[in-house]
């Protein structure tokens, strides 16, 4: 069974179409990166998946209708919204008590063990914790829940590098396994590139790229081309071209690796560079080459 399955998922706010009939399928055991510019529809899509907002079209998450069955769905789904949303008046011990009291799949010992590795005091108020510590606390609560789907909407926004690195390391080492699925949105694309199994670009309410990371590595190649070979390289129809230190870096979609190797050093592009190429082309179609 797919973890998330959507057909013709649509959401409009007045005349603004936030999601334009997208089809979406996320299999169990995947880590999907949902990448898009501000206002692309990422959060709208996640809100629909989490049962936080209504939508048109078909959507099944773990076989359930999220809008109708949010509370039941939340037994198997966890999410961390874009910024720290833990109530500031709460004590750490109360947060543990509450989640233990309402969540059938919460393992309190696990959360306590995770907290023991941090400097968070059980008696502290959330308001007295730093932003990084609040995220650690939230992560401790989430990781102790035996959920099937974890949705992270900009989970590391506003955190320093140490906390960000620790966040994803903990997630991968102590949480993820093949029975779980993770969907993550972030602007710090470079931080998630190595953990993703699947990649999805969303722009202006539509999905503009949907592929596995394996396919991504096979499909896209980046070549640093010397000026004398630039014309030959351009003839191959690059997706995007940028200048670094006076040299041109051309990004190709599905070009033959051997041909590219003759032009210069070939490597797999960063997601961020592909993002600029694809979304940039989508935003201004005349600038893009053969996309």
């Amino acid at each position, binding site marked *: 069974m797919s973890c998330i399955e959507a057909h013709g998922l649509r959401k409009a706010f007045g005349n603004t179409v936030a999601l334009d009939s997208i089809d979406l399928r996320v299999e169990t055991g995947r880590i999907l990166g949902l990448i898009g510019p501000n206002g692309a529809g990422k959060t709208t899509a996640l809100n629909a998946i989490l049962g936080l907002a209504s939508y048109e079209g078909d959507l099944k998450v773990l076989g359930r209708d999220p809008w109708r069955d949010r509370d039941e769905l939340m037994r198997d789904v966890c999410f961390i*919204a874009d910024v720290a949303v833990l109530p500031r008046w*709460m004590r750490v011990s109360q947060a543990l008590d509450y989640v233990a009291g*309402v969540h059938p*799949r919460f393992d309190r010992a696990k959360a306590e063990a995770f907290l023991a590795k941090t400097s968070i005091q059980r008696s502290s108020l959330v308001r007295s914790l730093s932003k990084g510590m609040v995220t650690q606390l939230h992560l401790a609560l989430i990781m102790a829940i035996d959920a099937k789907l974890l949705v992270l909407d900009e989970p590391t926004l506003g955190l320093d590098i140490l906390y960000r690195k620790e966040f994803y390391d903990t997630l991968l080492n102590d949480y993820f396994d093949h029975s779980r699925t993770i969907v993550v949105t972030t602007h710090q694309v470079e931080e998630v590139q190595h953990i993703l199994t699947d990649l999805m670009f969303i722009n202006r309410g539509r999905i503009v790229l949907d592929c596995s990371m394996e396919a991504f590595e096979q499909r896209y190649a980046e070549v640093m081309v010397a000026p004398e070979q630039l014309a030959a390289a351009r003839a191959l129809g690059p997706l995007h071209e940028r200048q670094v230190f006076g040299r041109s870096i051309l990004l190709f979609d599905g070009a033959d690796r051997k041909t590219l190797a003759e032009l210069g050093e070939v490597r797999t592009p960063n997601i961020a560079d592909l993002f600029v190429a694809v979304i940039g082309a989508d935003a201004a179609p005349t600038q893009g080459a053969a996309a």
Partner: protein
Amino acid sequence: MSPSNTLLDSALPPPAPSKPTTKTRPFYWSVRRELWENRSIYIAPLAAAGVVLVGLIIGAFHLPTRWAHMVSTLDPTRQSQIVAIPYAIAATAIMATAFVVAIFYSLGALQSERRDRSILFWKSLPVSDLTTVMSKAVIPLVVLPVVSFVIMLVTLLFMLAVTAVVLPMNGAPANLLLSAFPLGKTTVELAYVLVVFTLWHAPIWGWLMLVSGWARRATFLWAFGPPVVACVFERLAFNTSYLPALLHYRLTGALTEAFNAGDASANMNHLDLAQMDPLKFMFTPGLWLGLLVAAILFAAAVWQRRYRAPI
């Protein structure tokens, strides 16, 4: 997306078998959550009782001898009436405080979680909107009346103990207060008053909770502004005052409908077991209409929370 084997997959442990689920009590913990967040629910009535008690004790210990002499010369009925006044004040203060706390609690109940964005956390847990709204509704409908009841009873016991010491010092019988407020009878009276008022005021709590979930800001204004404006409009347009009468009836009607005295300004010490009339109260259409309206308003608040997002 097609499955693929990445570097990551090979390093991962095999899927762990699902752990057995533990028993949960979402409603119980949601109510406790409310008490954690809103400590004024029990602190404010306690403080009211404390202030009144301390004031009375200080006053009682330097009771003017003239007054004490006067009391001791009155006939027993009159004596107990005078001694009853301080407790009536204390009980009224506790009830009034609980009422004010209930108003401000209800107005914030579904708004503060949106303002501090914590609604995203609450909604990430398997607790339904019905459970959440009901856990908030029981604060004015059950928790505050029970808290008031307990505090009023403890206050009475405390004052009985104090008067038992103070009154003989002033030449009055020690059991004077007890004769004004016999324990068993007073317990029943207090419980009756609280139950009657809570049921009668139910639509008020429903309305405040609905506004709390609906208004983005200025909940107080949205809750009380429209009724006032409507009253003024009715007066100007039709020169009638049905609406003000209706609102007044909703606020104080329990006094006239649940007691025989028919005295809307009745004080605690005027209400008597003999005057309690549960049967009359139960056959008052206003009670059932009010409860029906309350049910509709609470249902609307539940329905509405599904659509609510941070503000």
